[in-house]
């Protein structure tokens, strides 16, 4: 009994080995069989996709020759009749490829396979929602003996609510520096990139929304002396233009919002910009007559009036006066300090400054230079006064008095001693 079982087990093992061997050999044989025959494969990684409206996809479609002979395979793309307005193309895999109708494959590596690019673009609007559109790639050897096909199913969904933005996106405005700082009265420049994303060439009109009194001009980049108001941009083209904005001199120091608008027919796109006006500071000093000549007498104190004003747009702070005068001279100012000097456009009148010049006694008569500096935090101004110092006439009168006194004494002597 035991032996019987033993014998059975042995038989079984043998049988198993045989079967295994057989099956291996048959497998090997069948592979060899396939290789020897003509065969090819068409293959894609994805065969069921979901696309949004207007979205496009590029799929890799691989064709592999599995036979022993070179194959000439005709490929054909058959779209579902509902997918009329879809854009479907079978191209070679390089960028911007061409459409492919036939592929030749060799039996050996590496030329036994070829990758194609299936470009599917969903229409911009889908009338009715469909679960799937089927696109069939039919591959057939030239003699028609082998036919393979691959179905790609694409479901399309509509984008609701984002529709409008997509429309304005047909013009894209872009700038690198959306905020520019400038003193008032000085031009500021914005470089704006205008992209036409429509399918047609567009003539774009430009406009700018500015605060009152501001000026703006638009010129092509690198040709700043020319002013344009419209530009033609090819489809999918990009142009860079220069927007030059000049705030008036009287603009106060602040931040201002500007808007650059590009219009092409119905399309409109605006770009918000920011202008930071820093204000200008121009201090000016002058006299009533414009005459920078002072007359004074040595040893005496004399007042002179001059005016100070700010021709800029923003206030100048911390104004102080100092003077350069010959040795021993005293120059005082009233007021000698000012906390701020607003723009003359605001005050409408200049500030009056009294300068008191005291010339020391025994100053040699003649012309001297007195330099007055008005310095503020933001600006400073220097004026030179030519100061003519004269000899005081009071000593002259003293001399005259001395002579008169002597003459009087003489007269008294005359009257007393005469007629002897």
């Amino acid at each position, binding site marked *: 009994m035991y032996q019987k079982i033993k014998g059975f087990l042995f038989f079984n093992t043998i049988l198993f080995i045989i079967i295994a061997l057989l099956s291996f050999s048959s497998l090997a044989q069948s592979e060899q069989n396939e290789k020897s025959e003509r065969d090819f494969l068409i293959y894609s990684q994805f065969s069921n996709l979901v696309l949004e409206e207007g979205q496009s996809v590029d799929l890799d479609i691989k064709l592999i020759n599995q036979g022993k002979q070179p194959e000439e395979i005709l490929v054909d793309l058959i779209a579902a009749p509902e997918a009329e307005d879809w854009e479907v193309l079978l191209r070679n895999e390089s960028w911007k490829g061409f459409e492919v109708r036939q592929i030749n494959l060799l039996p050996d590596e590496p030329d036994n396979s070829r990758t194609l690019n299936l470009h599917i673009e969903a229409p911009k609007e889908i009338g009715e929602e469909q679960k799937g559109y089927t696109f069939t790639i039919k591959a057939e050897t030239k003699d028609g003996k082998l036919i393979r096909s691959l179905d790609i199913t694409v479901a399309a969904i509509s984008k609701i609510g984002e529709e409008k933005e997509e429309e304005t996106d047909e013009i894209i405005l872009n700038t690198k520096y959306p905020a520019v700082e400038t003193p008032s009265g000085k031009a500021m420049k914005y470089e704006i990139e205008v992209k036409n994303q429509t399918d047609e060439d567009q003539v774009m009109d430009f406009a700018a929304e500015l605060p009152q009194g501001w000026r703006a001009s638009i010129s092509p980049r690198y040709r700043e002396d020319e002013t344009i108001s419209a530009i033609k941009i090819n489809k999918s083209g990009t142009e860079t233009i220069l927007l030059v904005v000049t705030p008036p001199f009287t603009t106060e120091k602040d931040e201002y919002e500007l808007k650059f608008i590009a219009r092409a027919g119905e399309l409109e796109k605006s770009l918000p910009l920011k202008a930071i006006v820093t204000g200008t500071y121009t201090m000016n000093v002058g006299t009533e007559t414009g005459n920078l000549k002072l007359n004074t007498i040595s040893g005496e104190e004399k007042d002179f009036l001059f005016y100070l004003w700010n021709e800029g747009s923003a206030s100048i702070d911390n104004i102080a006066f100092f003077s350069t005068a010959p040795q021993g001279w005293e120059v005082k100012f009233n007021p000698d300090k000012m906390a701020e000097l607003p723009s003359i456009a605001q005050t409408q009148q200049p500030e009056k400054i009294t300068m008191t010049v005291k010339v020391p006694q025994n100053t040699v008569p003649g012309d001297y230079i007195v330099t007055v500096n008005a310095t503020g935090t933001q600006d400073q101004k220097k004026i030179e006064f030519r100061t003519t110092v004269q000899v005081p006439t009071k000593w002259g009168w003293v001399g005259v008095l001395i002579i008169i006194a*002597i003459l009087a004494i003489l007269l008294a002597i005359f009257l007393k001693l005469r007629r002897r």
Partner: protein
Amino acid sequence: MSGLGVVYWKELADYLGSRKFIILFLIVALTAGTIIYVINQSVSSDVSQFSGDFLFLKLFTFSAGTIPSFIFFVSFFGPLIGIIFGFDAINSERSGGTMSMVLSQPIYRDALINGKFLAGITTIAVMLISIIVIISGLEMAVFGIIPTMQELARIGIFFLVSIVYIGFWMGLGILFSILFRQTATSALISIMVWIFFSFFILMVANVIADQVAPLGNNATLELMGRNENIRNMILRVSPLILFQECTTAILNPSIRFFGISTALKSMEVIPGPLSIGQSVLVVWPQFVILIALILVCFAVSYVVFMRQEIRST
């Protein structure tokens, strides 16, 4: 003032007709001619030193080498002219015995001295104005320079100052002729005073200034200024220096100071001519002192003369 006119015209005639006047006038005229000649020579050799404003006035202050300027000439020899006219005015008459004769006429004593003084001043004025006109005329002829109004005014002031200056020396001569009976004494003392104020004062001033503010080898600018100041103060005792400063400032509009210390003070000044009024004011003290000197001199002479006893010898 009876008798003043008589004395004045008589004295004037005497002065203008006298030999000493003619000799003095010839000397002065010759000197003026020499000055013009020398200026002409140096200008033709180097024009650059003779350009700019106030050309006409430059001719009066111009000194070429050894020949002094006209101002210097007047300041030195003007006193001599004044002394020559004044030193024997009274004592010669007295020693000649004519004084009592004159005074026995209906002529008052004050008329005599006033007349003599005025006649002397007039003579000096006539002499000066003729010299100035001669020089100006020669300048215009030789250089073709026409004076401007301001230049004429400045020359006019120069003329007045010169009369006052020479008149002072004449007054001094008259004073000495009253004080001293001998003409030789009055002449000598007058000359002495002139020599002292013309030459010795310079030495005295230098000595005193160096004593008060000695200048070492490394004297500071300040010390030099002080020395200069003291020197100037002493020099200004001399009418000669006063006259030189006065006329230099009037005939040279760019001059506004004398001495180093004021020069230091004026470094910041912009060079340029002063107006005529300012020029006069710059030297107004000097001017006043000169006028005061002649008046005081005359007053003292007057008082002394009026109080003197006059006897016929």
